[in-house]
């Protein structure tokens, strides 16, 4: 069973969000990394890119396939996790410890549309 972390927000497309002030720290869930298998590349946006809630902002790739990443919130990318450029396997090792991007949110109320850990676990159980 894939693990979840309490206190985070979760999207239907298997991203998690940790909120620090007005910044959303975004990663993929343990369920997602497990479903993808060994990751070989993480395609990330650039700092200062504007991203929209529900829209693609990058991708994670295994040997076999690419899987798009969708932003849970709108805003401006303020930081990307450069460690993933050389070590995408960090997401396999600990998907919650290793974030992908940090976003300065333009509309924090979008967080209300996301799930909590219990709701996300229930969704995964049905997949």
């Amino acid at each position, binding site marked *: 069973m894939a693990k979840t972390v309490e206190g985070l927000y979760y999207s239907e497309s298997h991203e998690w969000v940790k909120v620090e002030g007005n910044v959303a720290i975004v990663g993929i869930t343990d369920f997602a990394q497990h479903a993808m*298998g*060994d990751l*070989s*590349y993480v*395609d990330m946006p650039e700092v200062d890119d504007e991203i929209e809630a529900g829209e*693609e902002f*990058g*991708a994670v*790739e*295994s*040997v*076999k*396939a*690419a899987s*798009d990443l969708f932003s849970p919130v709108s805003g401006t990318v303020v930081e990307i996790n450069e460690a993933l*450029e050389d070590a995408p396997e960090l997401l396999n090792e600990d998907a919650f410890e290793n974030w992908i991007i940090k976003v300065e949110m333009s509309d924090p109320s979008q967080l209300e549309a996301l799930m909590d850990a219990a709701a996300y676990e229930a969704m995964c159980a049905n997949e």
Partner: protein
Amino acid sequence: MEENLLKTCLYDKHVALGALMSPFGGFIMPIQYTNITDEHNAVRKAAGMFDVSHMGEIFVSGPDAEKFVNHIFSNNISGIPEGKILYGMMLYPNGTVVDDLLVYKEFQPDHFLLVVNASNIAKDYEWICAQKEGYDVEVVNASDSWGEIALQGPLAEKFAVETLGLEPAAALGFYTYYEAEWKGERMLVSRTGYTGEDGFEIYCSHAAVNEIWDILLAAGVVPCGLGCRDTLRFEAGLPLYGHELSDEITPLEAGLGMFVKVKDKEEFIGREAIAAQKEAGLSRKIVGIELQDKAIPRAGYPVEIEGQQVGVVTTGYRSISTDRSVCVAMVDKAYTELGTAVEIRIRKKVFPGIVTKKRFYETNYKK
């Protein structure tokens, strides 16, 4: 969905091994047992085995068998010795490809075995039967009664001889086979494969395939899924029907002209179209492309020059053996010279690449 998919005779063993199962060519097949990278490396460095029982076996026999197979096959089987295998294609009259296949010259006169792709068995059988008017031949689709294991890798010969007791396998040359028996049932052992490594393909009954699988597994041969079958064949420059070959691609465009014997053979289906294409020159061709970046080109991504699309990726990976992002792509002829700078569009960005040969790994076949 899965109710409509066929299962090979090894299905229960794949499930028991915990394989990730997925549809392929009308069958539910193992994609990986542990992970693609480890299975890939097992074949490159030791030995792996694949359930390829989904492949099709079509037998052609009769007084006109040689003439008929030569009529539908692009390579030249005239007078080939018994036990010899040739790779080639069946072509449509317009030169595009019905399927790519192996033709085995059996150990009796006028008997041939055609080994075809799983996804094309029904189409191929229908096509072959539709061409046989006027030829005294019998065509039998025996795909359901044959199982097949591919034993591949530098240690394949050791396992074939020492573990399975197939002593004659050691003496086989590349693209030859011999007939044996497994507990009284017919078995074919050929020095062929789809990985770029030495190895064997073993055709036998369902029961025998199950026994051989268990014996090889117990001896330490790594079970390998279709995931690494694709990464291995791709690195070795081998085409996959539906990607580098199709009913919209000719063998010349795929860089496989050496298997189409326009000069040696006066007649076969598709010959005129291929001869005409040779005469006129190609408008596009499959090439290799290597990216400098780590981004991974995938099938369907556009190849561009200055924002204009000049081709499309047919297969691409982060190559496991070379740790490079590489692909093969169908590209307009003007941009197919080795060293040509092109770009590949991957989602929202374009990445610079260089045209290379379409084989990314030095193959280790036994000659």
